[in-house]
């Protein structure tokens, strides 16, 4: 029961929103489509739901050609960014909608529908709010109702468009855990779209990184983090600092010191290398890149520094509170040595 997407291309007038996109979602998998706005992720979701048709390519589910099916017949549960709850219906009526509109021969009895609604209300922990209208709910509650409504039709696949986009940070974190739990309980293949890399890495089994309508990389969160295939993926997943270096056989040489270099391909010679804020060591003397402390911010469990080199370049580094960085003051001069770099 896997979903196979092959060579999908979709153009709007002469702009290619999706360019030769192929990926596969395994049964029960939780997949994230991650990319900045304009990367084509929402277009891809709409194609899967049947709300748009691709120019070329195939979408197969369990061996069946899905592009031949209309949105109505795909049985894909979709949770919209705006939730799109039916405003004139109660929460219970919203959840029951997909069952009520089935043709008479496939429609469950009234009692069965009521039982399903009760079960789902319990699942989303809103048992007492079945009679409320969407306008009487908070954002997080609406989101959960939208999810229950999509689950009511026993979807083959669940699609979520920026599921946490409209919520505040605290609710967001809570709902994230909860969504993962629901997914694990129901076992339905889930694909969600997000532009938030933290959300994608935290939640998904695998992440599909999109850029300008093309897939940059597909992989498990840790894989993406440890072995980014492109500078885009590296930079999109977190803060990045750039420095020049000479690379030979997986080692980056700087003026007076070296660091291991991770690269998807064998590169050598003069290169721009990148390092993460926490892959940096500071010391009061050289060798290293000389820099002045521009700002010192306690960022939760660690200390975040902004350092400026004499030629104006700014590094961002991160250190433990109890480290060489904790004694620094604004304006101090330090030497920055990357301890691990990435080359693309």
């Amino acid at each position: 029961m896997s979903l196979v997407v092959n060579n999908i291309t979709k153009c709007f007038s002469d702009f290619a929103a999706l360019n030769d996109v192929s990926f596969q979602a395994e049964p029960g998998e939780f997949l994230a489509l991650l990319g900045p706005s304009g990367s084509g992720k929402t277009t891809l979701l709409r194609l899967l739901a049947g709300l748009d048709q691709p120019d070329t390519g195939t979408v197969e589910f369990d061996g069946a050609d899905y592009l031949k099916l209309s949105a109505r017949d795909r049985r894909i549960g979709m949770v919209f960014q705006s939730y799109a709850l039916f405003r004139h219906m109660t929460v219970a009526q919203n959840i029951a909608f997909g069952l009520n509109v089935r043709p008479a021969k496939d429609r469950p009895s009234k009692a069965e529908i009521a039982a399903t609604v009760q079960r789902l209300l319990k699942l989303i922990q809103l048992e007492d709010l079945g009679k409320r209208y969407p306008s009487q709910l908070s954002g997080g509650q609406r989101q959960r109702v939208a999810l229950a409504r999509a689950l009511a039709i026993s979807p083959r696949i669940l699609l979520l468009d920026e599921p946490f986009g409209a919520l505040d940070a605290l609710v967001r974190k809570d709902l994230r855990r909860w969504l993962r739990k629901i997914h694990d309980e129901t076992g339905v293949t889930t694909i969600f779209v997000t532009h938030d890399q933290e959300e994608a890495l935290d939640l998904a089994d695998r992440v599909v990184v999109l850029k300008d309508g093309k897939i940059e990389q597909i992989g498990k969160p840790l894989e993406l983090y440890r072995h980014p295939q492109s500078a885009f993926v590296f930079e999109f997943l977190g803060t990045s600092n750039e420095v020049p270096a000479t690379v030979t056989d997986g080692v980056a040489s700087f003026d007076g010191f070296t660091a291991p270099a991770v690269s998807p391909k064998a590169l050598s010679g003069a290169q721009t290398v990148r390092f993460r804020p926490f892959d940096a060591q500071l010391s009061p003397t050289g060798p290293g890149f000389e820099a002045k402390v521009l700002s010192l911010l306690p960022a939760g469990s660690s200390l975040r520094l902004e350092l400026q080199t004499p030629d104006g370049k700014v590094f961002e580094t991160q250190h433990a509170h109890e480290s060489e960085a904790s004694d620094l003051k604004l304006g101090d001069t330090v030497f920055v040595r990357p301890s691990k770099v990435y080359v693309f």
Partner: protein
Amino acid sequence: MKVRAPEAPKSFPALVLLAFAVLWMALVILLPLVNVLAEAFKQGVQPYLSSIVQPDALSAIRLTLLVAGIAVPLNAVFGIAAAWCFTRFDFPLKGLLLSILDLPFTISPVISGIVWVLLFGAHGWFGAFLQAHDIKIIYALPGLVIATILVTLPFVARELIPLMQDQGTDEEVAAVTLGASGWDVFFRVTLPNIKWALTYGVLLCTARAMGEFGAVSVVSGHIRGLTNTLPLHIEVLYNEYDSVGAFAAATLLAGLALVTLVLKSLLEWRFADELAAHRRH
């Protein structure tokens, strides 16, 4: 959104403005209304009633209700269809078509009548054809209906378009992904979402359809007891110096207008919460 409650006027200019507004309204709305009633009952209740139940008056009432009864449902259906097209699809010349939809608002009703005479009258484009087949449009019920339809065309559509634009298509798309047929989407999602705006538009449309004078006057031919609607009937009586009859009939029209107004206010009052909730959502 909370709106700050307006306060009672305190300053002198505010009081002057208020007094002017009240006086002006009394002068141009209340005074004529009182005058209509006073003239209608000038000779007592008996003459008033007898001028209402005379056959020509009753026939005018029937005809007015019949014309509105045909024109309003047709315009309601057209209004829904037009609003659907304008808010759910993109097509060339959409802006131009939207402006044309407003033409009946801006054009003189006399012209809305004359165009039909030019098309279907004895010397019109289709005049010879209609005569040959013995079809009567001008100076008959069909003419009254199409003239009324033209004049009241935009009322329902104009109420629905901004609302449907505002509501967007998300709910309809969601309904489709949940397996709803086009029929289900319309009757379970679209229609319930626009029902109050639709009712409102139909009310306005009805009031205008029953009160229409200019366009109807041109195509009617003023045949007493046959093609005179209530407004035309009033004019005929007035021209014959039957002021009690004219004003008695006028009270009926004014009454219809008041009923419409009351219904409209009731609607706004009863469903204020729901309408506000729609906008908040």
